[in-house]
């Protein structure tokens, strides 16, 4: 069974790009447009990985990560954050919220797949 990944991003094009790239790489992908949407959809499937943007309206990525880590089902699920912010503060903030790692935007599709493989194989 293919692994299922949720991608959370308010930019439809980035989200679709991520989804398309991952589907091409053989993953199942569920899209969510922000933190609130992601939380609403998180119970609908068993996810092997969550990839979330940080800057989003309604609920930002850091809050989403914190919310997800409370859920028993998601507790040990890897979460990657997409960030253009290269400052380590943001990364550390994400890490302490419970993120597994980060992908620095902009990235190329191959880079995304590489990082995802690193995390879930």
């Amino acid at each position: 069974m293919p692994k299922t990944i949720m991608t959370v991003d308010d930019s439809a094009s980035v989200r679709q790009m991520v989804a398309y790239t991952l589907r091409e790489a053989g993953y199942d992908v569920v899209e969510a447009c922000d933190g609130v949407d992601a939380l609403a959809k998180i119970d609908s499937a068993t996810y092997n990985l969550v990839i979330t943007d940080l800057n989003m309206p309604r609920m930002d990525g850091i809050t989403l990560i914190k919310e997800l880590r409370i859920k028993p089902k998601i507790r040990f699920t890897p979460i990657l954050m997409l960030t253009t912010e290269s400052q380590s503060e943001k990364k550390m903030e994400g890490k302490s919220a419970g993120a597994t790692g980060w992908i620095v935007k902009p990235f190329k599709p191959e880079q995304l797949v590489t990082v995802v493989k690193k995390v879930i194989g």
Partner: protein
Amino acid sequence: MIDSLQQAFIEETKELLAELEITLLAVEDAPTDSELIAKLFRALHTIKGSSSMFGFDDIALFTHDIETAYDLIRNGKLGVTKHIIDLTLLARDEISNMLVNTGSHTNINEENTKKIIESFREIVSGYNKTEKKQTKDAVELQSSSNNKSSEKHHHFHIRFIPGKDLFLTGTNPLMLIDELREMGSMVLSAHFDKTPDFIMLNPEECYCYWNIFLKTTKTLDDLQDVFIFVADNSELTFENISNEIPKDFEIDFTKLQNIISQNAQNNTNDFRSILKEYFSVQKQEMQSEINAPKKQAQASNGHSEADSVSSIRVSSEKLDELVNLVGELVTIQATLSQVAISNNNNDMISISEEVERITWSLRDSALNIRMLPIGSTFSKFKRLVRDLSNELGKEVELSTDGAATELDKTVIEKLNDPLIHIIRNSIDHGVEAPEERIRVGKSSMGKVHLSASQSGGNVLIKIIDDGAGLNKEAIREKAIKSGIISETTEMNDTELYSLIFAPGFSTAKKVTSVSGRGVGMDVVRRAIEGLRGSVQVSSELGKGTVITLKLPLTLAIIDGLLVKIESDHYVLPLSSIEECIELSEEDIKKAHGRHIVNIRGKIIPYISLREIFSIKTNRPKIEQVVIAKINNHQVGFVVDQVFGQHQTVLKSLGKYYKNVEGISGATILGDGTVALILDINKLTENEEIIENNF
């Protein structure tokens, strides 16, 4: 698929750029509004992030420095200035350029982009000395992966002791080890000596650690990259032990792994000594290397679709296709009704009525999908007004209302240029210079107001300014001078004002770069009429001018008046029709063969379609004159028979008939025959030209 993704990206970025502009202008009024600034940052952030992914590296690079500046602003380290807003507006235009000119850089002024980037860098460096480091950081991921590692082999001893809370961030350490394995050949030893007794064991914590020997062509940086996510809370050591290994020594990894695995108890020190022993004792005997099993991405096509979303993005072609199909349905439904009635079958009639009801709802919904709020167009004009008033040295404030009024997408698109032209005119000719305004007792700030509202099947758009107003005498003089009217022509105010839309008319005393571009207001009128709309002007000297555009809600289906000449049917746009009267042979005699009729004491000229269309058969004893209002003049069109209102689905006549004058399209009637839709404006214009040549 990639193409459509890229298309989606371009569309989205265009929207973001539009939003950026609106937000920028809003920030100018409220420079401390943190929500607006956050919005600006988000837009730039998204543009930068996505553009590189879709191959628009130039945009990504360009946006980077701007984003950096806005990050500072967002964090309160930098204040918004007019300079920054001006620069960002310029940058916005530049990005828009880059987006359109993908691939070819012909239209992109590199000097310009450079200047903008440098200005932003200056702004940033003024506040942040570490700016350079950040730039480097941002491209870190890319550069490290692009680095071609030398072909030289390195031998590393890696010790990886994960933090206890490793699992809590969802990390699987085996994945990291697998990743290392793919970088070359390795032997590995897992150690469990730190695992507590079962009673004390917390299954959520990680007690295991690893010692790894790796032969690879990768550099230390590459190895550290593997552990980048866990480096902060793990104990990691990398040691290059290449010099401990004899030259030309072929390592038998299988054998080495066996030796290591047999010493199950070994800890780090043991691991190291086993390696040392192996290298000193072993001679080159075997050659085979273990190739790390390469994982292959499973190729599967059965993707689960994303869960339901609240809105979806469809290309406008698909929408047009839908509207076309609905148009055909409307046509076929008319046929069905006709057949049902002529067969006089009650069951069938009731079914056909049901189909009619559903068809109309479907038609309304389909057309409704194409409706867009006009606000998106309005907001563009804020920028226009800002630029223009700067250029002309005037102070103008633009206000709008009714931005939520909806219009067909195609109408909105075609409305853009005429509106720009009218606003230009209002600012250039209407609104006075600040000194002049103060002199006549007005506030120095001029006002231009855009309003939209729906009235029946039409949308009214008003462009109101509080400027000098139209000077009737000047218009009259000018019109006589340009030969548009004669000295004796009597005109009411509405007629007089509408002269400003006549070709070749301009009352402006001096030609400015703004309105002296060689296109007059006649272009505006033609464009609006092309949309089956009309333009009206009212004005009061010294108080201001109101220009009202009346536009149909949609272009795909219009209300028409169905008429017949000989055996052919024609449709006239109902919106311009005022009434129908009869024309008998006697009436024609009374007028001495001149093409005029007398309606309630008013003389109205008419055009005989029979004559224009060269239909040579005899005219019926009593003809019908359809009176229409064109440019505020009444004109009659003579036909054989008038049937009445008809829901007309517009069809193009296609390439072969594209330039036929006086016919704007065709429609299909209930009985399947084709009826032509008349362009009565054009017909009138042509007739005027012919008659004026007599």
